[in-house]
């Protein structure tokens, strides 16, 4: 028994020492993000604890969506349903913005599309089911504690930070903006290279505080972070990287820094040649034209950009 304990402790000690060896530490503690893999999952792969945290935060993410619909589970239309032209009723107007895609239906089927008869009736009566006409959403604010919990459990889960901040910022008062920026500041401390978090901070400074200068600083940081990790950005981060160019160009335009704006547009279009907003900003209508002429000119340019 003692021998077994000794061997176990020796192996554990060896593992601890080995863990710290430069070659091993580099592999297990590598924070860079391989291309095509989600940064979040990559982080989780380094340890079992990370995996548990990731699973928990992902589970909470799904739960937050479920609570938003008051327990009514939704699903997107299948390809077959789309081909057959299945119609989706719009949800009831509950004063909130359209939250989910129009092509979503409830997982528990409506009576008219359910072959189960009596069983179907019982299913609708016992499960959290509402037909789409009576489908409303809870105030997203109610899900906020879940976002705090998921980011506390897994600080590298950037969608938790950005979506949580969006929910806090639904309160358009100064206090709401302040709280949202504080929340994002915590997110930035945990994810200093996150393009998404940086863009979200810049966006709030621009749209809520009207501080173009500070906003531009954050968009610049986002641009820098995007360039630094351009090969390893996931889809969401890449999208935020593209947005950083758009917002930066707009900020420089409004700050009368036209040279900087042109530089950003050229760089942005080189990275995202199909971006219609950047293309549109690059070819702003000449001021010599009348308002009507400017609109026609912009329309032509938009069509051109769309063609490309």
């Amino acid at each position, binding site marked *: 028994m003692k021998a077994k304990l000794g061997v176990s402790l020796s192996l554990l000690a060896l593992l601890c020492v080995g863990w710290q060896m430069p070659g091993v530490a580099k592999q297990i503690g590598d924070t860079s993000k391989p291309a095509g893999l989600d940064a979040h999952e990559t982080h989780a792969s380094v340890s079992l604890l990370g995996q548990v945290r990731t699973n928990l935060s992902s589970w909470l993410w799904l739960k937050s969506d479920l*609570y938003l619909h008051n*327990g009514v*589970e939704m699903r997107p239309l299948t390809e077959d349903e789309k081909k057959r032209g299945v119609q989706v009723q719009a949800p009831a107007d509950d004063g909130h913005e359209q939250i989910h895609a129009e092509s979503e239906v409830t997982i528990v089927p409506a009576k008219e599309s359910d072959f*189960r008869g009596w069983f179907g009736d*019982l299913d609708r009566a016992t*499960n*959290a089911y509402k037909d789409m006409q009576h489908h409303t959403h809870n105030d997203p604010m109610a899900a906020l*504690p879940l976002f705090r*919990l998921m980011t*506390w459990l897994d600080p590298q889960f950037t969608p938790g930070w950005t979506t949580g901040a969006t929910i806090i910022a639904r309160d358009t008062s100064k206090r709401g903006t302040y709280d949202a920026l504080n929340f994002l500041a915590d997110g930035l401390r945990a994810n200093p290279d996150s393009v998404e978090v940086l863009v979200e901070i810049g966006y709030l400074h621009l749209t809520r505080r009207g501080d173009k200068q500070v906003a531009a600083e954050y968009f610049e940081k986002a641009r820098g972070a995007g360039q630094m990790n351009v090969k390893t950005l996931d889809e969401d981060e890449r999208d935020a990287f593209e947005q950083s160019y758009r917002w930066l160009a707009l900020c420089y335009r409004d700050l009368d820094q036209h040279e900087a704006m042109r530089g950003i547009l050229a760089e942005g279009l080189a990275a995202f040649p199909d971006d219609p907003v950047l293309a549109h900003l690059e070819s702003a209508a000449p001021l010599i034209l009348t308002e009507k002429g400017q609109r026609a000119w912009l329309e032509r340019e938009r069509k051109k950009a769309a063609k490309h």
Partner: protein
Amino acid sequence: MKFRIYKALARGVLLETIRRKDLWVVAILGFLIMVAAGGLGLYGMQGLESFAKDLAVSVLGLFTTILAVMNSSRLLPEEIKQRTLYPLLARPISRMDLLIGKYLGAVLATWIAFAILSITTALALVIFGVHFELIMVQYLFAKMLGLAVLCAVTLSFSLYLTPAAAATLSFILAFGSTMIIRALVLANDGASPATAWLFKGINAFIPQYGLFDFGGRVANIGWAPVPLWVLGSLVVYAAVYSAASLAVAWVGFRKKAI
């Protein structure tokens, strides 16, 4: 007269459950729930009521399902394996009586475990100031019906399969039947008439455990209590399905060479 036989047999199952310390496991799990809830409480419960209730019903559903299946799947095979069935059958007890008595014992043990876990989770929820609604009482009632069906189905499987296989199949149905039914509903659209009839048959045959779980309504806010006709229908369905499962079990048990 029969009632006394059933009572004695059920009591035996219950004592065996206590002897095997299954109920101790439940009590420890309950304690762990309280500890975990305490951890969540430290974080602050404001706004997390739905989450806490959701967690509570998920834990209740998961643990009681495991207990019901594990308990029911080994009842008769162990009696046969350990040859303790002979002294039982030497008494004026028919195999049918034995089956019913064992089934009632399994249901009783499962319900007691469910009650222990329910009380623990309810205490945890009360501590955090979660409001109770009428639908929660309905949830407990429906869940008990569902557990009774689960015990009958598992007991039936255990007479045709090994205890491990019976437990596995029961778990697949307990956790997957809702998913299978949702898949049938999706696949039914655009299916040929023959396939549609096949789907109807599978839907009628498969145990509909999802109907007994009001967890989705309990966890969220403002859901009205389930109408009485629904509760009545569930009682009828549970009685019919359990009776059918026990009948299938009896056919297997009657032919079983012991």
